[in-house]
């Protein structure tokens, strides 16, 4: 008797493979990266503050939805210690946020990414921090990793770029040291003699009012070493304009690394702020008395 054809055997084999594949997808769903962080945080809290307080920690995907800003931020799924008093020295992602600024910019009203950058939609660290160009996300987390790849003076200060998107009309913003320095330089050096800034100024150089919105492909990187990034272009340009554009008439102000970073940050912060008027603060036009610090005074022109 000829044996049965092996179709059903083959079908069962395929069924088995499909089962393995399905099982893998389920396993992937039930063991995401953030679950590990949540259980680690729970044990940390239980150890320091007791089991009862640890029970209050919410489990599962967490998100802060800010409809006015059209953003959703899932950072708090892993960054669980953001509002915990006592976790200020904890390692990231469990560290508490500095409380002063958080009181003025509450989580519920602002979320996280509007100040820090990053991809709020994401639920794993790499996608959320969005440092890699593979992720096709033009708003990376402005922190050490990005700063180190750009070789700036102080990577942790990059965050202030985003402060200035709303606070651009302040003469002085508390906590934004580099931006304040840059604004001082702009008024001392009188950049508006050649450039339009905030809608006012001359047209000898380009209009910088919304310079931060300019797309990266509009810059010429032939004389910019390292990464082809707009920020790098600005760093080189402020160091010596003729290095980047030999025909430029912009004078060389001999800015040091701190000033070039500050100015590059300022220019990149000049973007159209797409947010409701209630989010734009009234401008603080009173600068505090500037400390006399000869080290930062640039050479006389």
């Amino acid at each position, binding site marked *: 008797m000829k044996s049965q*054809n092996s179709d059903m055997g083959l079908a*069962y084999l395929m*069924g088995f493979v499909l089962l393995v594949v399905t099982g893998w997808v389920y396993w992937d769903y039930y063991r995401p990266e953030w679950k590990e962080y949540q259980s680690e945080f729970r044990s940390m809290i239980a150890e320091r503050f007791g089991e009862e307080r640890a029970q209050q920690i919410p489990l599962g995907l967490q998100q802060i939805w800010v409809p006015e800003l059209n953003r*959703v931020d899932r950072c708090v799924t892993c960054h669980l210690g953001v509002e915990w*008093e006592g976790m200020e020295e904890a390692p990231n992602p469990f560290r508490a946020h500095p409380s002063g600024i958080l009181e003025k910019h509450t989580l519920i009203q602002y979320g996280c990414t509007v100040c820090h950058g990053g991809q709020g939609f994401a639920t794993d660290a790499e996608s959320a921090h969005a440092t890699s160009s593979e992720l096709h996300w033009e708003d990376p987390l402005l922190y050490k990793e990005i700063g180190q790849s750009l070789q700036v003076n102080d990577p942790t200060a990059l965050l202030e770029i985003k402060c200035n998107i709303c606070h651009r009309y302040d003469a002085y913003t508390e906590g934004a040291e580099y931006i304040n320095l840059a604004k001082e330089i702009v008024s001392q050096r009188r950049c508006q003699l050649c450039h339009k800034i905030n809608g006012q100024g001359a047209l000898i150089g380009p209009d910088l009012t919304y310079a931060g919105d300019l797309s990266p492909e509009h810059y010429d990187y032939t004389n910019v070493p390292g990464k082809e990034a707009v920020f790098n272009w600005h760093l080189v340009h402020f160091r010596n304009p003729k290095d980047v554009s030999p025909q430029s008439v912009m004078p060389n102000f001999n800015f040091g690394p701190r000033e070039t970073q500050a100015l590059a940050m300022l220019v990149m912060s000049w973007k159209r702020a797409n947010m409701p008027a209630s989010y734009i603060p009234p401008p603080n036009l009173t600068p505090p008395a500037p400390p006399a610090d000869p080290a930062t005074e640039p050479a006389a022109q």
Partner: protein
Amino acid sequence: MKTTNPPSPEPGHLPHASQVQGPSRRTFLDRLGLGALLAAIGGQATMMLRALVPDVLYEPPRRFKIGAPDQFPQGATFLESERLFIFREQQTFHAISAVCTHLGCTVKMIQLNPPQQVEIRGETVQEKQEFHCPCHGSKYYGEGTPYAGPAPERLAWYHMELAADDGQIVVNLTEPVNQDFRLTV
């Protein structure tokens, strides 16, 4: 895929698997295979349905912080967007919902000056405020029990606790409590 062609069947009778090879091993493998297949299909179908159960909600959260205890004055505070009345008496707090149990309008709080004496469930109480609903005329005593109008039930009271991280008061709309509940800070 190389498979043998199906055999020519004798008229009237198709061979059973059990007649071809050892019966129990063949049927066991068959059953195992069938089980795997059905499990796989079931798993895929469940995936498709599970995707429709939301894991995140684009809604205001049902459990939320309302502020530090010291932020609240003595007496009543109305939180408009959360539709809640927060009551403070010295160091005890309780929260009463402002959602009318008839058809969901937001009730108004009426201050009673001077306070009135009312009888609620056999007990005589001094009332400083009560709630009136503007939509269909329901009226509630200060602790939420309805006494006039179409409202079928008392106003909901919700669980309160202190947040573990920063000590703010947390109201939990998913956990209704009875009228004896108090949060003492």
